[in-house]
């Protein structure tokens, strides 16, 4: 049974439709990344999944039940890290976490242990006595993460955890998410940073309220480019290179051949091949280019910026 499942989920605010027929499944123990530009509907989808908002149409099930009908027990299995810092600046780091732990009915000893574990996990134990208002923005985010995991939820919703953070801190967050997944937790993470999709097990691209693409990072690359991408570097005059490339179009596994004229550096030319399966296509490409000055053939992992751009453009 999937941890999260939506069927034809529609959410409207007045006359504005924010989510349009979202079909989604998130399996237990995976990091699901929801990526999309600002205003795409990521937070609305997350809020609907947590039960804070009701769906206008369609069906939402988390742990097999509509989340807006969750009782205390089901809520104990959820953890939420909101987009902004919502804890209390006048309280110390530890007081904040103690407060959240109490909300989840942790006993005194359990609370002591789990608060410490959570603070150590986000590396804030040494700062536990500081007022939350006196720690840095990055630390506040980590405190918020600690608050989301202090009760060891099975499912963790994380709303744009790395927004406005520096790359080092972003990387740290994702390392922590991976650790949490390794502990057997399911994570639903929204982000604007397309490159973070690579850290997810599966990714959904949300654009204009529609799930434009859904799959593993590799599947999405394929979806965006129509297959895998091989980058070819050839020596020789441009005309000669074009002649050599023309042979590739007849290979069955090659979907598209594109010479990159802008990247040409004197006698060296570049081309991209879209192939349905790189492992199968590679020997055939070498064979077809027999006699040409092939300098290198690499399997290219295009950036998710590009993947995302292509998917959104294709969707629109």
């Amino acid at each position, binding site marked *: 049974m999937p941890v999260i499942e939506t069927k034809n989920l529609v959410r409207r605010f007045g006359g504005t439709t924010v989510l349009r027929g979202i079909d989604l499944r998130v399996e237990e123990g995976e990091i699901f990344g929801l990526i999309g530009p600002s205003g795409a509907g990521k937070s609305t989808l997350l*809020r609907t999944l*947590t*039960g*804070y*908002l*009701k769906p206008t149409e369609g069906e939402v099930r988390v742990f097999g039940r509509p989340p*807006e009908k969750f009782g*205390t027990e089901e*809520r*104990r299995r*959820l953890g*939420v890290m*909101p*987009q*902004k810092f*919502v*804890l*209390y600046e*006048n*309280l110390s780091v530890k*007081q904040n976490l103690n*407060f*959240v732990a*109490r*909300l*989840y*009915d942790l006993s005194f000893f359990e609370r002591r242990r789990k608060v410490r574990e959570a603070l150590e996990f986000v590396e804030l134990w040494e700062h536990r006595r500081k*007022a939350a208002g006196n720690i840095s923005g990055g630390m506040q985010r980590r405190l918020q993460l600690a*608050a989301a995991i202090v009760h060891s939820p099975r499912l963790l*919703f994380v709303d744009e955890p790395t927004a406005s953070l520096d790359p080092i801190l972003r990387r740290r967050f994702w390392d922590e998410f991976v650790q949490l997944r390794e502990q057997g937790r399911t994570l639903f993470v929204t982000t604007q940073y397309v490159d973070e999709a690579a850290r997810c097990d599966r990714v959904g691209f949300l654009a204009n309220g529609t799930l434009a693409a859904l799959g593993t990072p590799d599947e999405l690359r394929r979806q965006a480019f129509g297959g895998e991408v091989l980058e070819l570097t050839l020596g020789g005059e441009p005309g000669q290179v074009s002649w050599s490339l023309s042979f590739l179009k007849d290979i069955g596994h090659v979907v598209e051949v594109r010479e990159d004229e802008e990247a040409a550096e004197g006698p060296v030319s570049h081309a991209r091949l879209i192939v349905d399966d790189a492992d199968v296509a590679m020997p055939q490409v070498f064979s077809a280019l027999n006699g040409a000055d092939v300098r290198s053939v690499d399997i290219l992992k295009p950036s998710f910026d590009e993947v995302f751009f292509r998917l959104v453009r294709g969707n629109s």
Partner: protein
Amino acid sequence: MRSMRILSSWSRTRAVAVKEFWDLVRQPQLLLLLLLGPVLIMVAFALSFQTENILPRAVVVVEEGSEGEELFREYRDRFTVRTQFQGVLRSVEEADALLRRGETDAVIIIPPEPSETVLQGEQAVLRVHYATINPVFGTTVPNRANGLVLDLNQQIVRAGVTREIENLRQARRQFEEINEIAAQINAAAEALASEEAQGLTAELYTALTSLESTLIVLENEAEGPSEELGTAIDRTREARELVQEFREAQKEGAEEIKARTGALELERALSELGASIGEVPDVPPSVLVNPFRLELENLVAFEPEVVEFYVPGVLGILIQHIAISLASLAIVRERTSGAYEFFEVSPLGPGEILSGKFLTYAGMVLAVNLAVAAALIYSLNIPVQSSYLMVAAVMVLLTVASLGFGFLLSALARSQLQAIQLAMLHLIASGFFAGFLFPLEEMTQPAQGISHFLPATYGIRALQDTMLRGTAISPWDLGGFAAIALVSFALAWLLMRRRKI
């Protein structure tokens, strides 16, 4: 299972209460404001409130050498008692200029010839100029001026009555003298009607009859007519006839004698005069002028001074305002910060949020206000007519109702600014409609209707009852507190539940 749920719920409620407590305690400036602010306000109020009547400064304008000036000199003390008398001016323009510059509060203009006006059948006008825009508390000059005119009229009437009474006494004395003479006449008439007098008159009549007969004989015997005898006979006859007439009157009695002599008419006239003069009242002119005197008796056990009277009101408003200020931000702050969304996903329910916040705020508001009340009672010697426990009970009830109302405002507000505005509006409404500034019983609808929705209405009245009247909280006020608290908490809870959109 059920007891476990209750324990869990209590644990979450306590978590919210503890969080709120530390959140407040970690804001020393807020605590200082909460604690010191009300105390300072109360002390400043007690120290600066004027309990004595304020006399307006006044100048008098009167024409030199006029009757008005004489009048002013005669009754000058009346002017100086009613005002802070600044002096006499001759020009109204000059005096009005002082008024406009704020150097005086009133210009009293005395008419030059008041008697002349009065003799023409009109009232003499004492004009008073003043300058105020406050229709409620700016009535000092009109009130004092009214008092001055009443006072002057009274003084003048008193002098006139004294003079008239003296004249009446004089007339009465003269009348008494005339009455004495009339009495003597009466006595004479009585004497004339006595049997002895009748005998004497009969003898006189007989003697006159004999004399007349003798004279007639003499005349007949005389040679020739005698003028002297003729005259003597005529005179004797007249005398006899008069005596006869008098004898007849004597027979009728003294009244007939008085009637024939005009004494009766004199008596009647004197009687009428006596009735018209009347008795000279044996009462002082001041009593005659003011036959009634006002004697007030306040049946309450304790009559407070102005500051003492206002203390329950200020305390009630302070409790309500601190409670509503804290509570009105409670929910909306969590909502706008995003914490509420965090709570919504957690096991924490709206009832637990409200209860937890309530526990801390109630404790805090009560602690602050008990400190304020203690400071007032002991440092300013504000008396408590019932028991301290009763006053504390009212404070608890007012706190509970106010917190409920504050939570409701907070659940309704969409932003913190809106919540603050709602709390301020409520404070202003309480100032006007809760019986703090103006007595509720002197107001009509819609003010009376609005007052029912303000916790301070019940709070001020209940604090006045317990602190000043020495009575217990009335059932009506208890009902008011309970209704506001129950309805507010229920509505706030429902609104928080329904906010899931």
